[in-house]
């Protein structure tokens, strides 16, 4: 059986790829995809610890996280649509009036 550390390492890699995307890009769609990567890194951890303890709770949590991610993408796409309508661009740095 694969030790849990390797799953954690995989999850850290996926999480940091998502973080890299968020920190380096300005495109709102790539932001959404990067957030998905970070959420899926959390899912890997949940499933890995589910296996570590022989308990199904982690897998059920992962299912709930996926549902939350779907809700987040639905709202995110709506926001991107409005962003494009108002700014003719989906650069996340262009809307500045709601920053604070």
């Amino acid at each position, binding site marked *: 059986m694969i030790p849990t550390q390797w799953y954690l390492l995989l999850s850290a890699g996926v999480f940091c790829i998502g*973080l890299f995307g968020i920190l380096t*890009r300005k495109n709102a769609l790539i932001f959404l995809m990067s957030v998905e990567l970070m959420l899926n890194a959390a899912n890997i951890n949940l499933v890995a610890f589910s296996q570590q303890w022989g308990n199904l709770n982690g897998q059920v949590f992962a299912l*709930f996280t996926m549902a939350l991610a779907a809700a987040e993408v639905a709202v995110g796409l709506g926001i991107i649509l409005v962003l494009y309508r108002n700014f003719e661009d989906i650069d996340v740095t262009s809307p500045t009036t709601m920053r604070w």
Partner: protein
Amino acid sequence: MNRPRLATNLNLAAGVAALGLFAVMALVFVGAEFTDPNGFASGASIMEGIGYALFDLTGQFDVRPGEGIPSTESFLLAFELIDVVLVAALVGSIMLARRESDDSLRKTLTDGGRDEE
């Protein structure tokens, strides 16, 4: 022709922070000590267990680790809550995406209060 291109306008200085975080996390995780994974019994039905957990049916079956269905808890309330959240998100996104003829109020709400051009 429109085709994917390698992005050249990256803010790489900020990206170094992500690489640094990965280095720290990798160091911690590789050095972490865990017992051997318990895992699930070879004949355990994972999908059945998840289904029973989601619909609060665990009490109606003899649920013990290693005897068919792995141990779980009840998630019926969380299941219903996530249902409400999903519907709210879908309705919210449709509201955001809808194009109206007189959308002065919606525009004020969604354009960050910019002045009308």
